[in-house]
């Protein structure tokens, strides 16, 4: 067979399957005009055509080449993913809002606590106070102003809305006591001697009107032979403070000052 020419396997005695196969290939490759060959050629042309077309479609298309079901699935997946992400987004936004409002609440609580602290400190008399008010100076040479008169002044001032009061340099707080002693009037153990000053922080007009009212404390005091001046001021400074009680108990007064009178009150 001429098909075996040039093949380097002379050692094989019988025609090998390889040689017959090659021979068959060659004979098949020999062009013949038979109808079958032409048809096969046409089919192969169609195959090559379709192959190339499909390759191009695959290369150029992202979503174009996908079948309808795949597209639907892809769209579904994307929709699901979008929903998941949207839910996550709203969760996170809610968390952010929660944190922000929590911060606001904390600030609010802090502010109100500070306000409360300020109010309580003023009330407890542990901090100096400043504000509009009146300055009442009482000159009492005869010593006729006793506990009752002084308490009347204090109570009238409180009625008129005085927030902070000091008498003769002593801050008046909830536990303050005004007592008569042999030496005169004492406020929280401090003797109040003429002339003494009563400072009150509050509405100046109201406070002075309360003092000045006919038949009021001014008249009472002057009936006792005291002279009283009332000065409304835009700024009254009450620098007297009391020590803050610790653990609900008042601290012992330093220096062993007599406080028996206060206990009596």
């Amino acid at each position: 067979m001429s098909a075996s020419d040039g093949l380097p396997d002379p050692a094989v005695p019988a025609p090998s399957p390889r040689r017959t196969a090659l021979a068959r290939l060659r004979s098949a490759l020999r062009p013949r005009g038979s109808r079958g060959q032409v048809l096969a050629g046409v089919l192969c042309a169609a195959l090559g055509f379709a192959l190339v077309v499909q390759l191009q479609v695959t290369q150029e298309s992202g979503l174009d080449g996908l079948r309808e079901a795949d597209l639907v699935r892809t769209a579904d997946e994307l929709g699901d993913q979008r929903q998941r992400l949207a839910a996550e987004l709203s969760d996170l936004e809610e968390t952010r809002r929660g944190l922000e409002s929590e911060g606001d609440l904390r600030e609010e609580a802090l502010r109100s606590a500070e306000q409360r602290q300020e109010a309580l400190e003023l009330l407890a008399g542990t901090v100096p106070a400043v504000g509009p008010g009146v300055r009442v100076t009482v000159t009492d040479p005869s010593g006729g102003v006793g506990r009752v008169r002084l308490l009347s002044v204090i109570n009238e001032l409180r009625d008129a809305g005085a927030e902070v009061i000091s008498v003769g340099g002593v801050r008046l707080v909830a536990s303050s006591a005004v007592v008569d002693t042999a030496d005169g009037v004492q406020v929280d153990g401090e003797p109040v001697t003429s002339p003494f000053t009563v400072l009150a922080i509050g509405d100046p007009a109201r406070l002075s009107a309360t003092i000045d009212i006919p038949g009021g404390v001014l008249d009472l005091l002057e009936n006792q032979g005291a002279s009283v001046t009332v000065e409304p001021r835009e700024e009254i400074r009450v620098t007297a403070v009391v020590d803050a009680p610790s653990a609900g108990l008042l601290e012992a007064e330093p220096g062993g000052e007599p406080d028996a009178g206060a206990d009596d009150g």
Partner: protein
Amino acid sequence: MIAVLGLVVGVVLGLVLQPTVPVFVQPYLPIAVVAALDAVFGGLRAVLDGVFDDRVFVVSFLSNVVVAALVVYLGDQLGVGSQLSTGVVVVLGIRIFSNAAAIRRHLFGA
């Protein structure tokens, strides 16, 4: 020879014409191509076995293509198109590999 010529002509035609694939053919074209490849490998093997027959080749080529496309179409209608086309590709791939192995044994004796 004519078959090889036809293949070359087809490739050139495809490259030159750059046709757009009709939408209704798009899902079936890849499967049909694989089925045709299977038929071509089968034909080549038959040539080497010495049992090649033009009529058998033409019929197997066409039936392969048609059956593959039909199976995928049926799968699409049943809602299992992608799975079924995967199955068809796997089966055809196995056949192509076994045919290629037979061809290799014929041509290289190994």
